């Protein structure tokens, strides 16, 4: 099982902070996860696929073409507003 996390505005778009899913695909790309989560809803696909949204795999920032099939925890991070 892979844990998927959402933060800030993306958490509200998704309506949930986290859930777990089984992914059978290898390699598993960001686009594969988005397709599975969006289920054809273009708004969700656009929000999760935005260039400003970063992917964190097991606490490391990864590129869009990173293979996520071995990752236990994947987070979608919208732009941050700290300080």
């Amino acid at each position, binding site marked *: 099982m892979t844990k998927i996390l959402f933060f800030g505005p993306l958490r509200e778009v998704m309506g949930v902070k986290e859930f777990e899913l089984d992914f059978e695909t290898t390699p598993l790309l960001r686009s594969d996860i988005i397709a599975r989560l969006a289920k054809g809803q273009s708004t969700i696909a656009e929000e999760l696929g935005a260039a400003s949204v970063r992917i964190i795999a097991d606490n490391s920032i990864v590129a869009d073409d990173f293979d996520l099939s071995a990752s236990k925890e994947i987070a979608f*991070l919208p732009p941050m507003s700290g300080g």
Partner: protein
Amino acid sequence: MVRVQKEAFDAGAELNAFTQSHTDMGAVVTFSGHVRDHNHAETVSTLELEHYAGFTESEIRKIETEAHNRWSHIRTLIIHRFGTLKPGEPIVMVAVASAHRKAAFDAATFLMDYLKTDAPFWKKETRGDTAHWIEPRETDRIARQNW
């Protein structure tokens, strides 16, 4: 040292303890950020700060390490809160001690400029009956880029 916490802190007490523990340092610069009671001409009732437990701490430690790489003999304290805060409450504190003032001023500014853009927090401000996500500001991005 990095602390990410829900509890409020007393910036004055933190500063005194930090200064006392670095008696070899002649200069201490601190910054503390607090929740404003207004924004866009409206009264602010709460500010919620969301974080990513574990990741937020490790990203702030990276920022702290970068400051130590640039100013080799400084000592630093970074406190950042999460949770629901009210106007006047402290959000963030940065303290830098060094032998002389320039490194302390510069490193404190560097830390805050980086925290603003790179620290994983998402802020939601409630004004009146409406909650607004705070967008990253272009001026903050430029300030970080200039380092």
